């Protein structure tokens, strides 16, 4: 089998699929050229992630990485969600094949993009360097 049991579980029974009306933060990363787009919706109350949903256009591991990362940040503080790394996502998935690691990176970046959107919408000050800059990322051109 190409993927771990956990990856297949999250891919075939993805958690938290969908959208949130009036989301407090929305983040979308990736592009169709690469073949992966992830979109994360956050509902935030009192600095706590009360609800999270995702939509993903991509391969099995991209869907699984989105699904598991929504579980990992649900109920956490914004700072805790911001601290989630792709490495943790890979570990939680029980590993990913090397060419699929970028799917976990996208999951981390989608969450960060959604939190950045939340900060921007609410005029909250933040350190810009801690967010990925998709416009200047050349990930897709490297392959």
């Amino acid at each position, binding site marked *: 089998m190409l993927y771990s049991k956990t990856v297949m579980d999250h891919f075939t029974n993805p958690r938290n699929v969908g*959208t949130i009306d009036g989301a407090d933060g929305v983040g979308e990363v990736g592009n169709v050229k690469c*073949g992966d787009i992830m979109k994360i919706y956050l509902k935030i109350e009192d600095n706590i992630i009360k609800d999270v949903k995702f939509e993903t256009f991509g*391969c099995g591991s991209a869907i699984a990485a989105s699904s598991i990362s929504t579980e990992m940040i649900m109920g956490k503080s914004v700072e805790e969600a911001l601290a989630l790394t792709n490495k943790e996502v890979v570990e939680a998935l029980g590993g990913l094949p090397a060419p699929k690691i970028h799917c976990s990176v996208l999951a981390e970046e989608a969450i960060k993009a959604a939190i950045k959107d939340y900060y921007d919408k609410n005029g909250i000050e933040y350190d810009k360097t801690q967010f990925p800059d998709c416009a200047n990322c050349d990930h897709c051109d490297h392959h």
Partner: protein
Amino acid sequence: MRVYADNAATTRMSEVAIKAMMPYMSEVYGNPSSLHSIGQEAKEHLDNARAIMAKNLGCEPFEIIFTSGGSEADNQAIVSAATIGARKNKKHIISTAFEHHAVLHTLKKLEKQGYEVELLDVHENGMVTAQQVKNAIREDTCLVTIMYANNEIGSVMPIKEIGAVCKEKGVLFHTDAVQAAGHIKIDVKEQNIDMLSLSAHKFHGPKGVGALYVRRGIMLSNIIEGGAQERGKRAGTENIPAIMGMAAAFEDACNNIDAHTEKLLKMRDRLIEGLSKIPHSVLNGDRESRLAGNVHFCFEGIEGEALLLLLDIQGVCASSGSACTSGSLDPSHVLMAIGRPHDIAHGSLRLSLSAENTEEEVDHILAVVPKVVAQLRNMSPVWRDLQEGRREYVIQ
């Protein structure tokens, strides 16, 4: 139910082929290069296999070289023609943008050695015309290499017409017939083919064996150096069990082309008709000039690898040209060649049938694919954008 719909990748070996191979493992085990009776007995059978291949291709037995498969045959044909060309200072090669990598990568290598490779544009329907070839041929053209049928989208090229143009201009013509051999009637003389590659495991023969037809008088260059097997053009003791299996499978396939085609066309056309009903889907490859077992679609808003995995769980084994299945971030070069944008090229599905498939299996595929496509679209932000008008459909 588990349906194998990936026969363009490989086929199940036929009973005929397996049975033909068995005696050559323990009974007729000699080395055909040996002078003693046990070796000569093996040689007799090897000659028979060569005669069977030749008969079914319309050539002479000595015009057949056994290889390790289609890739080796492609490599040898192209390198040989290039070497012949270089002697006459002809270093221009014509091919197409949607060849198999066994051809494209060999051409890339030749390019580095100073050859000029011209890849013809492939029409949106997956076709290349004889006129395009005619227009591209120059004084210094040494080879035209164009596949018989495309391995992904199944379009079948006008080989006889292309061959006629090459013959008229005195240019060598090679065709990679890996997807066509055993499925379409081939007569190399009648179709003006100078060199042709085929592979046994695409027509229910064993893996790891193929053949190269080379018209009399064309000087081959070795890819594998060593002993004097195969007229000194392909060293290494012949894989007799595999060659016997290939010959039996090829003869069986060629004898049954009409019956198999009739059966396949019914199943194929039902699949094409059924899958066309999925909104925003498009058939790739020519509708008429296509392999009897090939069905190839793009579905907008989804990605092919996810599609394949879910189909597999639902009992359908198929293939895709998505980036994720190719091991790179670029989708299939074939879909790029016919002008499909990345957006939809990632969402491709190839179903390739053999005569072993059944109408019940077609029913199962038709029940499962629309469901799985809808399931993936339901979680796709691209699909939502399309539905809500934030993105333009590529496929209407």
